[in-house]
Structure formats: structure tokens, C-alpha cells
């Protein structure tokens, strides 16, 4: 547990000093939102509102892929990955610390993106904001856990920039489907119920537990 906190602190401190992951993800997200505006014809506000959750989540997912690609970037220099592999005890805690740090960073970027998104898409995000934010936070758990594990695997490959998206995106499809479905409800003003949260709780739970247990096999030389 201490190990997880140590990693969480280390990643956030490093990010605070260099800010490269957050900047990369944020810039990319903004660009995606803008590109979408030029990609379709005139639409009525209702049509835009129906597309909005999908567009938001596509932006989030691709920004997450970018951010996750850099999860172990600091470990690559000086072979610090070996330092992590040398830590005693259950390696799952290392996974947890890393995933938690990514969760914080991704959530931050998503919050900023949401503002730009609401502005450019002219969509009302304030309706059901608490519900939407909860769903996003919960979906991030699934995204960050599977993303951290797959990032640890792809970082050892020469083709890591291609490999991670190929491995990751199929696993994010259920998250995407569930998240868009639930977000459509909350953005439409529906109250946040357990039914809306249930799919993401299940996916997040399965992914986190599996990745926690499997991480040991990924850190070996």
C-alpha cells in the first residue's frame, strides 16, 4: 500500500515539474474537439445534443490512449523499470499507484476538455453535471487500469506507439459503449441511478482486479 502511495507521489511530482503528459493530452483533446466542428454539416441543436456524448467520449478515449502511452516514459530512461521490478512484495501495488496517478491526470485533462467542448459544441454540460462527472470518474477507473497494464507491456517494444492503441482500443469498446449510454442519460437531465452506474462498476471492477493480479507477470525481465 505504501508502495502505491510512493508511486502516486512520484508520478504526480514528476508530472508537476515537467507537465508533459498533461499538456500533450490537453492539446490533443482541444484539437479533436475543433476538428469535429469542421467534420460535419449544419445541424440543429437537438441533433448536436444527441451526438454530444459520443463526441465527448471519443475525444476522451483517444486522449487517454495518448496519456497512457506515456505512463512508463519516465521509467524508460535509466532503466528505472528494473527498479520497480526489484520492489519486494506484491507488484500489484505498483500497478495501483501508477494507475491512480494516471487517473488523476486524465481526470484533470477531461475537466478542461469539457469546458472547451461545451463552448464549441454549444452544449449544456451543466445539466446533470454531478452525474456526468461521476460516470466519467468511474469509466476512468476501467480505462486507467487496463491502460496501465497494457502500457507496461508495450513500453518494452520498439513499436510501442502502434502497439498500445492496437492492444488497448478493443478493450475500451465496452467502456465506451457503457459510458456513452449512461452519459446520454445524465446529460439529458436524468437522475443518476445505480442502474446507470452498474455497467461501469462491473467493467471497472473486473479490469482493476484482473490487472492487479496479472501485473506481476508483466514486470519480470
Amino acid at each position: 500500500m505504501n508502495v502505491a502511495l510512493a508511486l502516486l507521489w512520484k508520478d504526480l511530482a514528476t508530472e508537476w515539474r515537467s507537465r508533459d503528459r498533461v499538456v500533450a493530452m490537453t492539446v490533443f483533446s482541444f484539437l479533436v474537439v475543433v476538428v469535429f466542428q469542421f467534420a460535419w454539416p449544419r445541424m440543429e441543436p437537438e441533433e448536436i445534443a444527441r451526438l454530444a456524448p459520443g463526441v465527448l467520449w471519443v475525444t476522451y478515449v483517444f486522449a487517454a490512449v495518448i496519456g497512457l502511452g506515456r505512463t512508463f516514459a519516465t521509467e524508460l530512461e535509466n532503466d528505472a523499470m528494473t527498479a520497480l521490478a526489484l520492489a519486494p512484495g506484491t507488484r500489484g501495488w505498483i500497478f495501483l499507484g501508477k494507475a491512480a496517478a494516471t487517473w488523476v491526470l486524465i481526470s484533470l485533462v477531461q475537466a478542461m476538455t469539457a469546458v472547451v467542448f461545451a463552448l464549441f459544441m454549444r452544449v449544456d454540460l451543466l445539466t446533470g453535471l454531478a452525474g456526468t462527472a461521476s460516470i466519467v470518474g468511474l469509466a476512468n477507473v476501467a480505462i486507467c487500469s487496463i491502460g496501465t497494464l497494457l502500457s507496461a507491456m508495450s513500453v518494452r517494444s520498439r513499436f510501442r506507439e502502434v502497439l498500445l492503441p492496437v492492444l488497448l482500443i478493443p478493450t475500451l469498446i465496452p467502456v465506451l459503449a457503457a459510458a456513452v449510454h449512461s452519459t446520454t442519460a445524465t446529460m439529458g437531465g436524468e437522475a443518476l441511478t445505480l442502474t446507470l452506474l452498474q455497467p461501469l462498476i462491473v467493467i471497472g471492477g473486473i479490469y482493476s482486479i484482473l490487472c492487479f493480479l496479472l501485473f506481476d507477470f508483466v514486470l519480470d525481465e
Partner: protein
Amino acid sequence: MNPTPADRIGLTLRVLGWITLVLLPVWAWTVINSPIDSVQGIMQKILYVHPPLAYGAYLGFVATAIAGALFLFKGREVHDQLAIAGAEVGTLFCTLMLITGPIWARGAWGPGNWWVWDARLTLTLLLWFVYLAYSLLRSFTEGDERAARFASVYGILGVVLIPLNYWIIDLVGGAMHPDNLQFEENDSSLGEGMGLPFLVGNLTLFFVFAYLLVLRWRVGVLRVEADAPSNAGEGELQHG
């Protein structure tokens, strides 16, 4: 001489081979003699081929995942070879499903419907991407032992995706684009005289899959046994 793993697999292979050899002509006979659908014509007969391919596509990945888990815990190459076999044969069946799917769709829904986003085809497509990811992971990871280990991990994750995707599509598919991604009540109405070829087809393709799986497995294990380092061996393991 003690029977090697390859020998034991060889025995299973011969048994499966004979069963398959018997079933194939039986199946062909039932398909040829089945009634021709009045609406869809002879194209409808794809129905006998397309759904049973699912056995190969899905069981292939299950074999990969279980073999991968065994490899992680026991470290025996024999298990990893089964995982590879599962992935290769599974990819084959999955690809065949994706080819016969549109042929059936065109036959069932008329011209212009080469692809339909029905739940099963969509699930098959998603599975196909997982297979692809698995292969790329194996190819792009440096170090044979590491590749086997990573592939085993991904295999376990991938196999969980199968029921997960099914559940999610079932849950939220109704409201999704494309057009109502739902599971239909019945696969397709099976009319008179269609039950038998369908049943035989399921059985036959299951054995075809099993035969191909074990065949590929045996090839892999033989290769491992042939390559086993002798005293004049090679150098260090790669460390990526």
C-alpha cells in the same frame, strides 16, 4: 522410449481425424438434401456454415487463454504452443465467419446489405480485432519468453472481453447506433427439414476445429522438441 508430448498429442489427433473424416460427408449430404428456401434461394444454405464457425472462433480464444494461464503458472513451452495454436486456428475461423457473414446477410436481407450490424456479427468483428492485437503483441515484443508471457496475459484479458462485450451489447445495444444492435429472438427461423443439417453442421465444425487445433498444436510441439538445445547450444536469451 517414453512417449513425448508430441506422441500423446498425435494419438488424440488420429482419433479426431477419423471422426472428422466420417462427419464431413454426412454433413455434406444433409446440406445438399435440405430444402431450398423459397425466399432466399440457395444462398440460405450459408446458414449451415456461418453460425457453427463460431465454435472455432470463440473456443479458439478460450483455448488460447487457458493455455496462456497454464504457461504463466507452470512455464512449460507445451502450453504456450497450445496458446499459439488456439490463436491461429481461432483467427482462421473468425475470418471465415466475417467472410460468410456478409454472404449470408446479402442472401437474407437482399441486395445492398453486404454488412449488417447485428449483434453476433459485431461481436465477431470485435473478437477479430482482439485476435489481431494478440498476434501483433507476439510479433512486436522482443524476447521469445517475454512474448509468450505477455501474450498469455493478453489472452486472459481478451477472453474476458468476450462475455463482457456480449453483456454490454445486450444491455445498451438497443439504443446504440448502428441501427439497434440487438440480439434477435431466434437466429433465423428454421423451417422444415432444416434442423438436421444444422445440428450435424454444428457437430462437424466442432470436430473440424478440434482437429485443426490439435494438428497445429502438434506441429508447434514437434518444432519445440526438434529445437531443444543440444550441448553445442546458442548464447544468451534476448533481453529486449
